[in-house]
């Protein structure tokens, strides 16, 4: 007997028992899930970050340069002291600086410039055909931006145009919500599959 599958099956049923009402069996399964997830993440981070990237290279391979990140890491803990708390600003400044330095150019190009350039499409194609989807993108983009333009009161043309923007947003939210429902159904179907195949052996 696969005891792992039995345990997983019983815990699945324990979690779904919440649909009836909150109960101790559900609470136990929920606490177990949270505890295991945190424990697993902690062990994985300890192994891959602290041991693999710091302890082994520094103490086994003598990579002395790693003393610098070790000290910077330890300085983070100075926040617990009122007297030495200012020391934590140094590694924080380094992290924010390095993070912003690598993120800003990449995000500006890929998330902003590339997206903007793709939003601006010719309304008439090279073959002389009318590009309807290009028009939809153009109206959708401008009207949604108009909705978030707060420097003028939303009256007259601006008000009507911003209203069109809300319809575009509603379509987006509706599609996203629909996909999310689909995603949650898939998760439920996945558990049903597990219960019927691995747990109950009803299906192969």
């Amino acid at each position, binding site marked *: 007997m696969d005891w792992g599958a039995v345990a997983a099956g019983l815990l699945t049923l324990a979690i779904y028992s919440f*649909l*009836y009402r909150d109960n101790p069996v559900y609470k136990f399964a929920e606490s177990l899930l949270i505890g295991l*997830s945190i424990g*697993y*993440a902690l062990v*994985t*981070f300890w192994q*891959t*970050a602290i041991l*693999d990237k710091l302890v082994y290279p520094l103490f086994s391979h003598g990579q002395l340069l790693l003393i610098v990140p070790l000290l910077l890491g330890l300085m983070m803990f100075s926040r617990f002291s009122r007297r030495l708390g200012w020391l934590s600003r140094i590694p924080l400044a380094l992290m924010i600086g390095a*993070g912003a330095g*690598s*993120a800003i150019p*990449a*995000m500006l*190009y*890929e*998330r902003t410039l*590339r*997206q903007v*350039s*793709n939003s601006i499409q010719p309304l008439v194609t090279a073959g002389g055909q009318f590009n309807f989807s290009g028009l939809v993108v153009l109206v959708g983009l401008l009207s949604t931006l108009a909705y978030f333009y707060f420097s003028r009161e939303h009256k007259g043309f601006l008000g009507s145009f911003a209203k069109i923007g809300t319809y575009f947003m509603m379509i*987006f939210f509706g*599609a*996203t919500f629909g*996909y*999310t*429902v*689909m*995603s*949650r*159904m*898939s*998760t*439920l*179907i*996945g*558990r*049903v*599959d*597990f219960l*019927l195949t691995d747990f109950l052996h*009803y*299906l192969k």
Partner: protein
Amino acid sequence: MNNQKIRWTIFASLFAVIVVSYIITLKWRIPTSPSVQKSYDLIESLPPSSMVIVSFDHEASSLPEIQPISYIILRHLFSRNQRVIGMSLFAEGTAIGYQTLNKLAAEYGKKYGEDYVFLGFKPQHISAILGMGESIRQVFPQDYLGNYLAEIPLMSGVENYRQIAAVISLADGDRTVQWIEYTGKKHGLTILGGFTAAMITTYDPYLSSGQLYSAVGGIVGAAEYEGILGLPGKANRALLSQTAAHIFIVLLVIAGNIAYFKRRKGGK
């Protein structure tokens, strides 16, 4: 019926609809979306023994949706004799990725270290993505099992992204966005995505701009891929349940609206 009983009835009915429709086996032809076709065509067009990174960038909770996608894509890769470098940018994806790779590799008689390898997890995913562009060995000196990359035959000659034909990111969040942002312009990597359905609208702008080469989204995407490969699996089976559940929910929405308007009319 009070609200509590209505809720229980809905839950029980939905569960029954899904179970019954899952047990029924139907053979049906699923039309292929352009994005799934593009993913298939890309893997078909890669020369044999191309290096492909498969990154398991998801948590255990999204396994029911991601697993059919990862299974069918890995089956395609292994059947085309591509070499797979597995890794994870999510701690929870590590064990899942390793198990999935071993299971699928065994199906096709692939050997660890020669046909595929699993590098494991690296925290600080942006540093990992950027670092691998300089040197994969700097980021992952050892694989998941503790073998040095220099001693793994598959990794000989693999220095950085220049030797990688494509990256397949299996994600339930925005990790694929980071693959796009930090490797797109600098390294020009071809990135394929395998996503949960909830993330499809997030990635649509990247798909239409071409920053993301193609995507396989949710159970439907996996079922389409299974259809092209001619290997109907769990996604194909789940699709009937998915459809039945959606129809049931639509009927509930209609019934709810009718009840609401009736009550409002009666109140007036």
